[in-house]
């Protein structure tokens, strides 16, 4: 059939048999005719797809499973050991409310983790060629006055000049507020941050799920914490405090650990929820807040052009706005003659060779600097932690734009595994003050990826790094140092036992 030989019929049959058994190329094309491939199978980014393209996650998902386990184990212990007592002695509404909260938390977590954050598909070859032509034309034309380099376009949005940068990987000019995630190797619309705890980027399409997840998780941890304490108090009222504690490990073996887990979770998660509530009400992304894009420190008349001016409208727009559809059509079938987007990334994590040399250097620089900072900052943690107690006013320009998340998370400084959710999300906002835009999204690398020589304490590093960045003079509070020092030591001991 394919070869057009003298004995077509016999050869056809022979070829058909051969196709099924041996020749890989023909087998593939034969298979293609029978089972058309779906678009997720050739997706150029570094994502993982499950359930035939219905579920989309980042490459590193280990920390996400940790989040799931922490939530389920803590809630499970609560329902198993505390709820029977509370339901019989107080009210049966407690396990019911707890159950509803728990299911909501899980639902929001799974929704945030599994959905497309708003990935922008890469340009088709025709589009890329058209853009290149336009940029070359702009390069060649001469004219007086300031003209931004052709790889940057300037747009005036609501009176503010916004620069649109050209993404070398995706071959597009990024829309405003979009950013390229280096971990997932995708441009994401309204990029907030890459969250290892959720195992996905947080962007336009899943920000509300992420926010509702941390908000409901705050309520859940406060709920569990409060009622576990109530349980201990009620029990101690009956049989004395020491007896209650003695009973606890014997009959309810893990109440103590539950309390500790919840205590640290409460502070970090509540703090993170508070931070994101601030972001939503001012209609900023974590990325913009860290870079200080709309801070008045940058320019006197700097303001956020995307804000609706009103806290309520901003909140409603973020949470109740329209749900945008996914642009990447993961489950669509590949049409054999449609143009496929350029994919320079082979998905194995190798750096695309066609990228701009400067870009590469800056990325490498970012990686090196991140590792250096994290390693260097680890040692100060063991001695003293410059801690911000409460927000120390507007963060000074340069390094302390991390002050926002830090301040709200400060009391949870010693990091136990339970506080990971808050810790990580703040930690993954650790960016370097590198002028190149491509580095801004070089966030906290999940513990599996990061070759840390410090072992268990590597989980502590993001906070240490925060500490390293913050200006000690502003933040040192001797009264809290001792207790925090003890806590941090305890935290490290706990970590090493995990």
């Amino acid at each position: 059939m394919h070869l057009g030989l003298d004995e077509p019929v016999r050869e056809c049959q022979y070829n058909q048999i051969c196709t099924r058994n041996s020749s890989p190329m023909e087998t593939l094309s034969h298979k293609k005719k029978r089972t058309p491939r779906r678009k997720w199978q050739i997706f150029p980014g570094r994502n993982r797809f499950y359930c035939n393209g219905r579920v989309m996650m980042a490459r590193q998902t280990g920390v996400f499973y940790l989040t799931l386990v922490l939530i389920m184990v803590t809630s499970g212990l609560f329902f198993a050991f505390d709820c029977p007592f509370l339901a019989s002695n107080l009210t049966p509404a407690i396990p019911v409310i707890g159950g509803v909260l728990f299911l909501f938390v899980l639902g929001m977590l799974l929704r945030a983790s599994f959905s497309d954050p708003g990935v922008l598909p890469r340009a088709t070859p025709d589009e890329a060629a058209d853009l290149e032509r336009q940029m070359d034309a702009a390069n060649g034309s001469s004219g007086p006055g300031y003209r931004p380099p052709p790889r940057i376009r300037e747009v005036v949005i609501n009176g503010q000049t916004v620069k649109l940068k050209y993404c070398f990987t995706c071959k597009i000019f990024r829309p405003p507020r979009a950013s390229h995630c280096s971990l997932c190797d995708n441009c994401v619309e309204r990029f907030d941050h890459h969250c290892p705890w959720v195992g996905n980027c947080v962007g336009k399409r899943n920000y509300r799920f992420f926010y509702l997840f941390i908000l409901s998780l705050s309520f859940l941890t406060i709920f569990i914490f409060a009622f576990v304490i109530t349980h201990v108090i009620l029990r101690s009222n009956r049989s004395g405090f020491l007896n209650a504690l003695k009973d606890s490990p014997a009959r309810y073996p893990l109440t103590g650990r539950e309390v500790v887990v919840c205590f640290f979770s409460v502070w970090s998660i509540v703090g993170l929820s508070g931070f994101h509530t601030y972001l939503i009400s001012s209609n900023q992304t974590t990325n913009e807040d860290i870079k200080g894009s709309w801070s008045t420190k940058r320019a006197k008349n700097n303001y956020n052009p995307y804000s609706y001016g009103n806290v309520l409208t901003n909140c409603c727009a973020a949470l109740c706005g329209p749900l945008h559809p996914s642009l990447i059509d993961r489950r669509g079938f590949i049409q054999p003659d449609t143009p496929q987007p350029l994919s320079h990334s082979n998905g194995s994590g190798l750096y695309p060779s066609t990228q701009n040399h400067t870009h590469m250097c800056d990325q490498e620089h970012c990686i090196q600097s991140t590792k250096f900072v994290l390693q260097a900052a680890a040692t100060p943690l063991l001695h003293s932690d410059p801690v911000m107690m409460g927000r120390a006013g507007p963060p000074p320009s340069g390094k302390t734009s991390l002050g926002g998340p830090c301040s709200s998370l400060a009391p949870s400084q010693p990091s136990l595994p339970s506080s990971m959710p808050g810790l990580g999300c703040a930690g993954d906002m650790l960016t370097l003050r590198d002028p190149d835009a491509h580095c801004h999204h070089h966030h906290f690398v999940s513990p599996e990826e990061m070759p840390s020589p410090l072992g268990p304490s590597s989980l502590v590093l993001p906070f240490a790094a925060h500490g390293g960045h913050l200006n000690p003079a502003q933040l040192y509070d001797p009264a809290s140092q001792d207790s925090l020092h003890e806590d941090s030591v305890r935290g490290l001991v706990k970590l090493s036992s995990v």
Partner: protein
Amino acid sequence: MATEFHNLQELRHSASLANKVFIQRDYSEGTTCRFQTKFPSELDSRIERTLFEDTVKTLNNYYAEAEKIGGQSYLEGCLACTTAYIIFLCMETRYEKVLKKIGRYIQEQNEKIYAPRGLLITDPIERGMRVIEISIYEDRASSGSSSGSSSTSGTSAR
């Protein structure tokens, strides 16, 4: 739609893709979806300016309607939140409904206005809402009203 595709298939050999024009996004009003209404020079000889601008303006209006933040979107959002977003398994979002309307509008425009002039508009959703891609075909057949398809025929047949 099937008839159109059948015709396009038959006339495939009689027209060839000459060029593609990309209408870029207009971000002057923020991140909402709008396309530039600037008339590209390549279409000068092919279509009247007003027809083109009408098409783009109508598309912009559709997208604005999809992304409008108002009573209906709040209601949908709150309802979805209270049902933990399970309701979207049964119901499609307003945005998706408007996207279907846009698909039908583009197909209608292609059939009535653009195909007779040897042009074809690709639905922006197929290009990630980055551009409106207009394919320009060179008419090889003697009759004036031919429309060809090569790489973009699959999209209208979807």
